[in-house]
């Protein structure tokens, strides 16, 4: 019994470690890395253009209409994105849709909003303690206050970081201000950009127990609370604040339903963004805002793009299958060799997660070869069917991983 249990434990350990390590080593040795496809809408050519990578240094620049470009020609079709190059090449100002844009106009009007799957609040570990910066510090540059806050079941608590003690007056003042604005404790979500490396501070957004969204700012030690008109039944999952040079577009709001909105100021109006085909748990969303054609892109295996009017009304969309690393010869061999891949990694965010990726029917080839190899070794060792049966089961389920484990472990019935 002790031996059987020990044998099984050893085989399981070896199988699991093989299933993690061997595919990694194989990938390091043979796999071709393929960079993501970058998709844009050219406000000049009025069509989608993309940069595609097919492994090694094979980049191509092309349009949805089949035109191909060199790198310089490609960048000239994206004058807002590459305004500094355009200036170096003496191509500014440029006229688009009857409007003339010089370097400063291009620089000031370009905004990029990005929401990565790994950033979403419930997809990453968090220490729920936040700094509420003084939005009007009366000096150039922002600085961290000497306190932090956390949301409890019944109030907002400020803690003096120098002595790690509750600041009762500040706690009372801010709790009262929130209650007077109609905030219902406890908070569901706290969202803000926790850095001082930004042009201004927009404070934090708090979602209360009823789903209402409040905007909390601090001026000195005085609270400024605004109850926003954002619908409380929106079911907010994540708010990303992007404080950049244009304060009228403040950030992105992701709803539980997967819908995404642009948060505009000063009236807290929401602009619905195109999300058909968008999966926030697996895809990064990118919104490039320029005064001619704001464009949203998302997706990895299939890259989606939606071009819009300056008022964010969709006018064109495009989807393109990105070059697929899983169709290379090396990937097909791996698919036949390994029945599955076991991974403990942070692919979808800071959390490490166990993942099993099945390789489908081609894996039967590897399993059959592994069983044949095991049968041969069993025969050479003169093992009876009863002796070999546990190994057969392991190899039939786990293929080459189980084969390595069973052959490397002490023979179960040997003495």
């Amino acid at each position, binding site marked *: 019994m002790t031996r059987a249990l020990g044998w099984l434990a050893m085989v399981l350990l*070896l199988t699991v470690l093989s299933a993690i390590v061997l595919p990694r080593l194989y990938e390091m040795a043979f796999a071709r890395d393929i960079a993501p496809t970058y998709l844009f809408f050219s406000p000049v050519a009025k069509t989608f253009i993309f940069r595609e990578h097919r492994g090694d240094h094979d980049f191509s620049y092309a349009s949805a209409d089949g035109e191909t470009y060199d790198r310089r020609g490609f960048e000239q079709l994206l004058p807002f994105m590459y305004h500094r190059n355009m200036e170096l090449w003496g191509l500014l100002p440029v006229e688009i849709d009857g409007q003339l844009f010089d370097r400063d106009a291009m620089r000031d009007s370009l905004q990029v909003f990005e929401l990565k799957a790994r950033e979403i609040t419930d997809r990453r*570990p968090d220490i729920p303690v936040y700094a509420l910066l003084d939005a009007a510090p009366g000096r150039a540059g922002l600085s961290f206050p000497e306190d932090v806050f956390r949301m409890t079941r019944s109030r907002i608590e400020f803690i003096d*970081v120098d002595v*790690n003690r509750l600041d009762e007056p500040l706690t009372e003042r801010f709790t009262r201000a929130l209650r007077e604005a109609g905030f219902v404790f406890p908070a569901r979500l706290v969202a803000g950009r926790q850095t001082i490396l930004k042009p201004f501070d927009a404070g934090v957004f708090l979602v209360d127990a009823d789903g209402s969204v409040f905007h909390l700012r601090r001026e000195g030690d005085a609270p400024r609370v605004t109850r926003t008109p954002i619908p409380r039944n929106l079911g907010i999952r994540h708010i990303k604040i992007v404080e950049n040079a244009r304060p009228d577009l403040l950030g992105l709001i992701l709803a539980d339903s997967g819908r995404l909105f642009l948060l505009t100021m000063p009236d807290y109006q929401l602009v619905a963004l195109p999300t058909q085909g968008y999966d926030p748990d697996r895809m990064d969303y990118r919104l490039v805002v320029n005064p001619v054609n704001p464009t949203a892109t998302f997706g990895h295996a299939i890259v989606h793009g939606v071009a819009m009017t300056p008022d964010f009304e969709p006018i064109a969309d495009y989807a393109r299958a990105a070059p697929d690393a899983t169709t290379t010869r090396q990937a097909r061999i791996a698919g036949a060799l390994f029945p599955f891949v076991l991974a403990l990694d*942070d692919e979808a965010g800071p959390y490490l997660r166990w993942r099993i990726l099945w390789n489908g029917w081609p894996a039967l080839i590897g399993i059959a070869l592994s069983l044949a190899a095991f049968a041969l070794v069993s025969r050479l060792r003169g093992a009876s069917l009863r002796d070999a049966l546990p190994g057969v089961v392991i190899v039939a389920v786990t293929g080459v991983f189980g084969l390595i484990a069973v052959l*490397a472990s002490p023979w179960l019935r040997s003495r």
Partner: protein
Amino acid sequence: MRALLFKEWIKLRPWLALLVVGHLTFAVWFFLSMRQEFRVEHAEIIFHQASRIGRLFYDDLRYVPLVTGALLGVAQFLPEVSRGRLRLAMHLPVPLGALMAGHLALGLAALLVLLAFDLGALAVTVGVFFPAPFVASAVATALPWMLAGVAAYLGAALVLLEPVRWRQALNLVVVGGVIWLCHLSNAYGAYDLALPGLVLLTVLIAPAALLAAARFRDGAVS
């Protein structure tokens, strides 16, 4: 069985004393280094680094459980196998499983006390300088490191009890693999969702060590 456990206790006593002194020293040093950090740097910057940038102020603890587990395992099992003493115990009228479980239980109990002390020292030190959410985060982040310590202890038994050299090397690779999995990420809270699987892998080392012990008793040569 009581006599065997007493024998193990006598054997491990000086090593445990050494480890206790080492862990106490580390705890004091850790507290002082954290206090020094707050003396030379603005507290609000340290808070920002800890919560938003992900700097682990307790990163020096990372390999302490690993070294402790390995040292304790080697101290307990190396004399047994190098001088063949374990073989004498194996001739006593005690089933092999119970005999080895007793050995491992004693070592594990001592190790868990030391690791609990480490976690306590971590919680107290972080709690002195940071509010409670930082304490919870620090303890959760340190748990896989503690697990690596347990894996190192059980792994020492697995490697040392195995009588065949090349299998010892293979067992070392297996234990190294489990320990590697416990140190994959530098991000705080990264293992919150992965810990049960790692616990399972670590627990599997114990019955594998029993197999090594059975092979040691039987004088296996392949």
